[in-house]
C-alpha cells in the first residue's frame, strides 16, 4: 500500500505569527516538502493545480519535473489535474513529457475543479463540467494510445493527423486516477476505463465516502476489469501530530480555527469527529486510519494533507517525519497483513503496466480494457 502527501498549495497567513509567505516562498516550500517526503521514505507526493489566489501551483508538471530530478523513489502525482479547463492535447503532451523525465515514476489524478470563474477564464462553462471531463478524457486517452489521431468533439477544435509528443514511455500511457467527492458519474468513468478512483474525503463523513467507493467497485466489476475488491482506490486524509496528544490540539487549534474552507465554522471537536481530520498522537492517527479499510475495503493509496492553513515549513517537515517514522510503517504492516492475496497492494506501476501491455500483445493477458488496451492489475 502506498502512503504519501498531497498539497493544494494555499498561501495562508500563519495565525500565530501573522507572517504570510509570498508566492515564490510558497512554491519553494512545496518543492522542499516533496524532496523531504522522498528522503523520509513516503511513497507519493501529489501537487494540486489551481488558477486563482491564494493557491500558487498553476503548473504542476513544471514542479513535478523538478522534483523528479531531485528525488529517487517517491511517485509523483497530482491532486488534481483539471480535465475540464485544460486542453486535453496539452495534458497529453505535458504528462507524457513528465512520464519520460521521471522514467515512469508518476501517475496523475484528474478532477473537474469547483472554482466557478476558472471555467470562463479558460473559455469553458462550469455547467458543462461533467461533459468536459468525459469528452476531454476520451481524447486524452486516444492521444496517448494512438500515434496519429483524427478527432472531432464538442469542446475543442478538431484534429486531423495529430501526433502528441513525446510518445508515452515504452508506449504505455501513465496510470490515471479520477477524483470526485460527490459525482457518481466520475466513479462510473473510472470504473469504465479500469482506472483508479480517488475520494478526497477530508471534508466528508466516511459514510459518504463508503457509498461512492462501493459504487465504483461495483461498476469496475460490471465493466469487466476484475473483481470489485480488486478495483484501485485512494483516499484523502488530514492529520496533525505531536507525541503528546494535548500538545497537538493546542498547537493546531489556531490554524484550524482560521483555516481556509472550514475555518470559523465547525469546532475542531466536531470536525475531527465527523471527518478524517485527526489531531493527536501518532498512535491516535494509526488507530483512526487503520480502520478506513473496514469502510471502503482494502485500498491502494492513502494521501495526507499536512501543509495547509499557514503551518510553517519546519512544522510540516516534522509532520512528514512523524508520518514516515511512526505512522506509515504500522499502517502498512496492518494493511498488508489484512489484504487478501488476490487484491493488489499498490496501484499499477509503470513497469507493471508495461509488462501487462506486453502480455496483452502476446495474447495472454486475462483482462483487457474496453478499447483493447491491456489493463494492469
Amino acid at each position, binding site marked *: 500500500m502506498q502512503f504519501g502527501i498531497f498539497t493544494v498549495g494555499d498561501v495562508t497567513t500563519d495565525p500565530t505569527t501573522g507572517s504570510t509567505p509570498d508566492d515564490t516562498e510558497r512554491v519553494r516550500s512545496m518543492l522542499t516538502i516533496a524532496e523531504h517526503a522522498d528522503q523520509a521514505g513516503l511513497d507519493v507526493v501529489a501537487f494540486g493545480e489551481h488558477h486563482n489566489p491564494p493557491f500558487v501551483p498553476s503548473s504542476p508538471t513544471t514542479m513535478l519535473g523538478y522534483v523528479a530530478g531531485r528525488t529517487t523513489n517517491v511517485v509523483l502525482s497530482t491532486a488534481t489535474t483539471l480535465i475540464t479547463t485544460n486542453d486535453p492535447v496539452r495534458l497529453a503532451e505535458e504528462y507524457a513529457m513528465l512520464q519520460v523525465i521521471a522514467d515512469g515514476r508518476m501517475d496523475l489524478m484528474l478532477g473537474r475543479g469547483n472554482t466557478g470563474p476558472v471555467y470562463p477564464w479558460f473559455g469553458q462553462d462550469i455547467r458543462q463540467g461533467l461533459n468536459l471531463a*468525459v469528452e476531454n478524457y476520451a481524447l486524452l486517452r486516444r492521444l496517448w494510445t494512438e500515434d496519429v489521431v483524427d478527432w472531432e468533439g464538442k469542446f475543442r477544435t478538431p484534429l486531423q493527423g495529430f501526433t502528441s509528443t513525446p510518445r508515452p514511455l515504452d508506449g504505455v500511457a501513465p496510470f490515471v486516477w479520477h477524483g470526485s467527492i460527490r459525482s457518481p458519474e466520475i466513479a*462510473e468513468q473510472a470504473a*469504465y476505463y479500469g482506472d483508479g478512483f480517488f475520494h478526497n474525503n477530508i*471534508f*466528508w463523513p466516511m459514510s459518504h465516502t463508503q457509498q461512492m467507493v462501493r459504487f465504483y467497485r461495483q461498476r469496475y466489476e460490471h465493466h469487466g476489469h476484475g473483481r470489485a475488491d480488486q478495483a484501485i482506490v485512494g483516499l484523502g486524509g488530514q492529520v496533525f501530530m505531536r507525541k503528546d496528544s494535548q500538545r497537538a490540539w493546542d498547537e493546531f487549534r489556531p490554524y484550524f480555527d482560521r483555516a481556509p*474552507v*472550514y475555518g470559523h*465554522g*465547525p469546532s475542531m471537536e466536531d470536525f475531527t469527529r*465527523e471527518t478524517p481530520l485527526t489531531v493527536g498522537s501518532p498512535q491516535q492517527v494509526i488507530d483512526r486510519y487503520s480502520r478506513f479499510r473496514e469502510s471502503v475495503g482494502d485500498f491502494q493509496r492513502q494521501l495526507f494533507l499536512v501543509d495547509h492553513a499557514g503551518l510553517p515549513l519546519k512544522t510540516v517537515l516534522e509532520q512528514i517525519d512523524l508520518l514516515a517514522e511512526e505512522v506509515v510503517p504500522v499502517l502498512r504492516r496492518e494493511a498488508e497483513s489484512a489484504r487478501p492475496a488476490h487484491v493488489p497492494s499498490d496501484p499499477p506501476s509503470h513497469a507493471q503496466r508495461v509488462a501487462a501491455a506486453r502480455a496483452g500483445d502476446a495474447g495472454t493477458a486475462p483482462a483487457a480494457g474496453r478499447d483493447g488496451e491491456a489493463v494492469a492489475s
Partner: protein
Amino acid sequence: MTVHPLGRSGAAPRRLVVVSAGISQPSSTRLLADRLAEATVAGLTARGLTCEVTVVEVRDLAHDVVNHLLTGFPSQALSASLDAVTNADGVVAVTPIFAASASGLFTSFVDVIDKDALVGTPVLLGATGGTSRHSLAVEHGVRPLFTYLRAHVESTAVFAATDDWGGTGDEVKPLPARIRRAGDELAATMAGRAPALPADPFGDVPSFETLLGNG
C-alpha cells in the same frame, strides 16, 4: 427532528415534513406549524390515507446549517433532516417574518437543500409576525424561494399575527378556518399523488456509453 406516525392505518403512509424556523421557545411559529400539520393530516385522514409526520426544528440545527454553508457538507443531524425533506410527499414550511422577509435562519436552511430536492413537491407555506401588516411578506419573501426550487407551492399560505392567537384577529376568516383550508389544499394535492420513492443518487447514473454520447 421528531417523527410521529399519525392517522389511520391502510395504504402506504404519506410522509409529511414540517420545517419550523421559530427562534423562541415556545414559539408561535412552531404553534402554527403544528396546526398546519394537524389540518393536513386531518385532510389526508378524510381521504382514507395515513401520514407520518417529521418535524424539523431549524433552531436545533442552526450551527449545523451555518457550518454546512461554510464547509460544503452537512453534519449527521442536518443530513438526516435534509434527507427527510428530500424524500417528503409534502412539506409544511413556516418561518417568522423578520425585516419584511423570511428569517435568515429559515432561508439559510432552504439554501442548503439540494436545488432539485423539492422539484414538484407540494409545499404549504406559513409565516408569523407581530401584526397583520407583515402578512404579504410570505408572498413576496417566501413564495419565490420555493418557486425557484420548482416546488408545487399551494396557493393558500397562512400568515398568523400575534392578534390571531386571541380574539382580536380576523373575525370573518379567523385563523383556524385559514389553517383548515390550507391544510386541506395540501392534503388534496398529496392524496392525488403516489408516495414518493426514496431518492437514490446512485440509481440514476447514466451508463458510460450514454455519457460518451454513444448510448
